[in-house]
C-alpha cells in the first residue's frame, strides 16, 4: 500500500466556489412569548448552491433576523442537533445542501414532539423512550484483565446500529409515532438492537421485556420513513425486523 513514488499524478477536479444564487427560505416559526400559533415566515437571500441548509439558517440568523432559533453544534452531521423537516422530509440541516433542494426551501420543526420555539422541540419524551430500552452494556461476569474477545464477524452484526447519533429524525418521521407518542419509536429500537446483537452483552431478557410491551416494538407498521430519514444511513427497518424475529424465536 506504500506508494512512495507516484505512478501517476492525480490532481483531482479543481474545486470551484460556485456563484451565489437567490433562494426563498420558508421557516415555520413560533415564539411562545408572542404567538398564539405557528406561522410561516419567508426570507429571500443569496446563497451558494453548496451551502448547507444550516449555513442558510445561520446567514438568516446572523444577517437578517436574530430571533430565529434552532439547535446546532457540529455542523457536519455527527452530533444530531439539527434534525428538521426540510422540504417535507426529515433531514439534518447540516447534511443537506441547497443544490439538492432547489430555490425554495421550507423548514419546519420535526413532528410529534412539542414545539417550544421555532425549530426547538421538547426532546425529553424522545430521550425517555431511549432510556426505557436499557441502552447500556450489561455483563455481570468478572471483568477479564484485558479486553473481552469478539470476532470481527460478531462485531459486524450490530455495526450499523452503533452509528446512531440520537438525532430523532427517524422517530419523528414515523407515522405511528406522530399519532401515538407513546410508541417507543425507531431510535429506541435501534439502540436496543445495538445491545441485543452484541455477543458480549447479557441484558437481553430485560430488554426484550420492554420491546414486547404494548407500545413497544410491535407497534411498528414497517412504514420505512425512519430508514429514509436516518442521516447515518442505518437500515432501521431492517434492524427493527431483526429484533422482531429475535423476540419471536426467543418466545417460541
Amino acid at each position, binding site marked *: 500500500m506504500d506508494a512512495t513514488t507516484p505512478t501517476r499524478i492525480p490532481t*483531482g477536479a479543481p*474545486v470551484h466556489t460556485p456563484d451565489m444564487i437567490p433562494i426563498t427560505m420558508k421557516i415555520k416559526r413560533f415564539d*411562545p412569548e408572542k404567538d398564539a400559533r405557528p406561522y410561516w415566515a419567508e426570507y429571500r437571500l443569496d446563497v451558494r448552491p453548496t451551502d448547507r441548509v444550516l449555513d442558510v439558517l445561520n446567514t438568516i440568523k446572523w444577517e437578517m433576523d436574530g*430571533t430565529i*432559533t434552532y439547535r446546532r453544534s*457540529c455542523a457536519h452531521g455527527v452530533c444530531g442537533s439539527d434534525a428538521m423537516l426540510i422540504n417535507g422530509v426529515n433531514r439534518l440541516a447540516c447534511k443537506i445542501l441547497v443544490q439538492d433542494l432547489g430555490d425554495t426551501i421550507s423548514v419546519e420543526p420535526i413532528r410529534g414532539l412539542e414545539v417550544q420555539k421555532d425549530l426547538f422541540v421538547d426532546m425529553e419524551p424522545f430521550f425517555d423512550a431511549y432510556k426505557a430500552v436499557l441502552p*447500556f452494556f450489561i455483563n455481570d461476569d468478572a471483568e477479564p484483565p*484485558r479486553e473481552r474477545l*469478539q470476532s470481527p464477524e460478531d462485531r459486524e452484526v450490530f455495526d450499523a446500529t*452503533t452509528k446512531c447519533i440520537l438525532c430523532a429524525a427517524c422517530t419523528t418521521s414515523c407515522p405511528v409515532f406522530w399519532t401515538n407518542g407513546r410508541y417507543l419509536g425507531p431510535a429506541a429500537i435501534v439502540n436496543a438492537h445495538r445491545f441485543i446483537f452484541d455477543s458480549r452483552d447479557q441484558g437481553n431478557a430485560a430488554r426484550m421485556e420492554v420491546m414486547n410491551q404494548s407500545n413497544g416494538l410491535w407497534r411498528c407498521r414497517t412504514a420505512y420513513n425512519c430508514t429514509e430519514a436516518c442521516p447515518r444511513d442505518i437500515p432501521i427497518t431492517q434492524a427493527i425486523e431483526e429484533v422482531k424475529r429475535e423476540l419471536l424465536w426467543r418466545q417460541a
Partner: protein
Amino acid sequence: MARAHKYDVLVVGAGGAGLMAARYAAQNPGVSVAVISKLYPTRSHTGAAQGGVGAALGNVSEDHPEWHAFDTVKGGDYLADQDVAEKFSHEVIDAVYELEHMGLPFSRTPEGRIAQRKFGGHTREFGKSAVERACYAADRTGHMILQTLYQQSIKDQVTFFNEFYVLDVILEDGSARGVVAYELATGELHVFHAKATIIATGGNGRMFKVTSNAHALTGDLMSVLYRRGIPMEDPEFYQFHPTGLYKIGVLLTEGARGEGGILRNADGERFMERYAPTIKDLAPRDMVSRAMYLEIQEGRGVGPDKDYILLDLTHIDAAIIEERLPDITEFARIYLGVDPIKEPVPVQPTAHYAMGGIPTTINTEVIRDGNNTIVPGLYAAGEVACASLHGANRLGTNSLGDLIVFGRRAGIEAAKYAASVDYEPMPDGVTERTRSELDRIRAASGSERASHVRKALQDTMMDNASVFRTSETLQNQVEILAQLRERYAQVSVEDTGTQFNTELMETVELGFLLDNAEQLVHGALNRQESRGAHSREDFTERDDDQWLKHTLVYKEDDGSVRIDYKPVTLGKYEPKPRVY
C-alpha cells in the same frame, strides 16, 4: 431570584471528560453528583473525534508505554511535563480496557482483540518507524466513547442539567463554591452550590475561520476563570490539523494517512518525504500543517487559487476505505462532491485543538499561579484543561486518551475531596455579575451585530495568529482585538425574550471567544521562539535555554494582560532536535 441547587460534586460539560468524571465521582456512595451541559450530552464534540485513542496495547505489533511516553514528549516538542506523560501512557492502557468493559464496540483484529492502527507521531523504539497504537472503532472512535459513557451514565442514574450554560464560577476566599448557570429553556439563572466543581467544557476552536470544531466550542470556561483571575497555561500552542476539508474545515482523520493516505502538491509530489523522511505523511500535525503551508506559499498549492493540497487515498483498496473510513468518505462526497475512492480530496489545515488551557496538576486540581498553588474544590479535565501532557503539540489520539485518563482522575479526586470537607457558605449576590452582563446585552441599543464581530475575529485570527506568526502580525492582532472589544460593547440583540434565546447566548459566547483570542495572541507574541504548533517566522528556532517553560497568561483587574512562566518538568528524555 435564582434557583438554587446543591451537589457534592458538580461536573460542567458532558463530553468524554465530563462523563468520565461523573461516572467515577458517582461511584462513591453518599456523594451526590450532577452534570451541567449547554448541549445534550450526546451532542458534545467528543462525538466528532474520528481516528482513535492511543494506548500501547500491542495488539497488532509490539508496543510499550515507554515508547508512547517518548512519542508524546517528543511530539510535544519537549514542552510536555514528563511525569505526566509517563503516568498517562501507562494509565491509558487501563482506561481503554475499561471502556471496552463498558461495552465500547471497538473494531477488532482477527483474533478478536481491539484493533489498532498507525497514527501521526506514534513510533516504535523511540522513533524508528510508525507503530499501530491507535485503538479505533472505524472512524467513529469519539462517537463510540461518547455514546458508551452516556449509556453508562444512564445505567448509573446520573443527574443531568441539559441546555444549561455555565456563565460563572463562584470563587470565594480562594476556593470554588459552585457555578452560576443560565437555563436556555426559561432564561432563569440557577446557582449550583458544590463542594467540588469539575470543569470539562472542551475547546475554543471557533475563534478561527476554518475549524474542525463545533459551533458550541467557544472556550466559555477558559474565559470565565480567566476573568476570575486564574491564568491560562500555554494558550499560544494551538494545533492546526493538516487535513480539514477545503474551505469548510470538516476534519478528515489522520487515520486516513494511518491507513496509507498520501499528501500531494500540485505536481503530484509526495512532499512529506522532504520534510520527514522517516515517517513522511505520519509526522506530527504541526510539521505537516507547516509543510502544507510552505508548499502553498511556494506556489505548489492545488486548484484555481493554488490554495489547497490533495489527500490521496485512491491507491488504497476501496473495501478498506469503506470499512475503516466510512464517515470521512461520506463527508468528502457530501460537502465537496469528491469521491475519495476515485479522486484525491482537497484539504487545508484546520484549527483543531487547544494544547493549553486551565492549568492543573497531574491530579487535575486547578492551580492559580507558577508555584502550583491549588484552588481548593476546583478541578479541570479534557481539552479545556492543561495538565501539560501535550506540550507544544498534541499527538493524534492523545486527546481521547487525555479525556479518559484525566476525566477519571478528576472524578476520583473530586469525590475524595468532597467526602472530606463540608459545604462552605455560599456568598450573597453571586448571580449579580452574570445578571448585569445579560441585562446589559439585552438592553444594549448599539448598531453592531455579534455575528459581524465574530466573523472579523475569526478572519483576523486566521490571518494573523494561525500556523505561522510574526511579531508584526501578532502585534497587529492585539490592536484588532482591542477594536473588536470596543465593537463588542456596541452589540445589541434582536431577541429580547426569555425562552430559548440563542441569540443572547451566542453573544455571550462571543465575549468568551474574545478572551480566548487575547490569551492566545499575547502568549504567542511573548514567546520568541518556534516550538511545536507555535511557529514564528521571525524566531524560527526552538530555544531551550530561554523558552523551555510554560506560559501563564493572567487577566489583571484593570483589564490588562500579564504574562508569567513556570518550569517544565523534565525527566528521562533530554530535549533534542525534533526530526522524523
